[in-house]
């Protein structure tokens, strides 16, 4: 069944159609949110929140933009709100492991690298982080990111550049030899 038809059915109040509509986006939204908050429980909670919000406001969706752009916009706004709440309540700890000891084992090295990516992402300004994830994980074009984020193309490119620069500096030891 086509996405458009599913959307129309959900807009008529068919809750079951919503399950089919959200199915292709579950992993994508979860991945994006995980990259934003880097905590499984929070990412799961936020993913559910995105779909609940989407369901409750889908009657206002006019098919003028693509559904995924609309859905991603909800996701990124929720993630940014969540981030703001976290900044306001710093006692809530993130699921960030301490730096690993490293070692010759490749799985250990991978773990250490993931932790370094984790820490670097956490340090990036949320807008830069979102742009980086949209581009590198979701593969959105600059134009699509600009639509989702509600900003200009130049802003997207600038944020992406600074985010990549941050990653490049933080991951420098792992990037030697182009690996």
């Amino acid at each position, binding site marked *: 069944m086509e996405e458009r038809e599913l959307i129309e059915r959900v807009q008529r109040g068919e809750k079951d159609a919503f399950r089919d509509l*959200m199915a292709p986006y579950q*992993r994508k939204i979860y991945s994006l949110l995980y990259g934003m908050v*880097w905590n499984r429980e929070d990412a799961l909670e936020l993913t559910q929140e995105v779909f609940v919000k989407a*369901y409750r406001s889908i009657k206002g969706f006019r098919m003028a933009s693509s559904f995924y752009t609309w859905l991603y916009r909800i996701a990124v706004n929720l993630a940014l709100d969540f981030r703001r709440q976290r900044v306001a309540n710093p006692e809530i700890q993130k699921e960030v492991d301490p730096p690993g000891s490293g070692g010759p084992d490749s799985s250990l090295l991978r773990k250490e690298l993931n932790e370094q990516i984790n820490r670097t992402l956490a340090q990036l300004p949320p807008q830069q982080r979102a742009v980086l994830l949209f581009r590198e994980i979701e593969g959105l074009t600059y134009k699509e990111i600009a639509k989702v984020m509600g900003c200009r193309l130049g802003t997207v490119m600038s944020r*992406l550049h600074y985010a990549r620069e941050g990653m*490049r500096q933080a991951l420098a030891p*792992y*990037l030697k030899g182009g690996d």
Partner: protein
Amino acid sequence: MPDCSRVASLLEKYVDEALSQDETAFVKGHLKGCRRCQKELEELFAIREHLREAVAAEVADCPLAGIWEGVAERLEAPTAMKRIWWWGKTLVFPVRPIKALAWGAALVVLFLVTLPLLTAPPTPRVVVESVESEHPVMIFQGEGETTIVWLFEKEEGKEGKR
């Protein structure tokens, strides 16, 4: 190489496939002979690869099946507006008239019982005008509701101070 700075400014767009055909051809041509720019390019791809692997590793065992259950559960739960509407409707248009009458009667009784307590006059102030005593007496009337009465023992040979 003289073109390195221009290529460096185009590399990110190259990686993101956002260059024009001419620009792409220019960058490709330069990369063939420039190890430094090749390294820059490899780093950009490596960052992408590492990021994807890091997120994929964390997301791989995500319990996606549970997402719909959580969403469905939340959709069933009444929203704040619905809860307010329900309370308003229940209070204004009670479904069971007898129950509503009973509640109404209870409220009236409660009101009638508490009304005298709320409107009761304050306790009148006690004024001590005289004290019958063989001992000398002093009366102190405070500003509040306190009145202090002192009784002094008689001193020998005296009738009392006051």
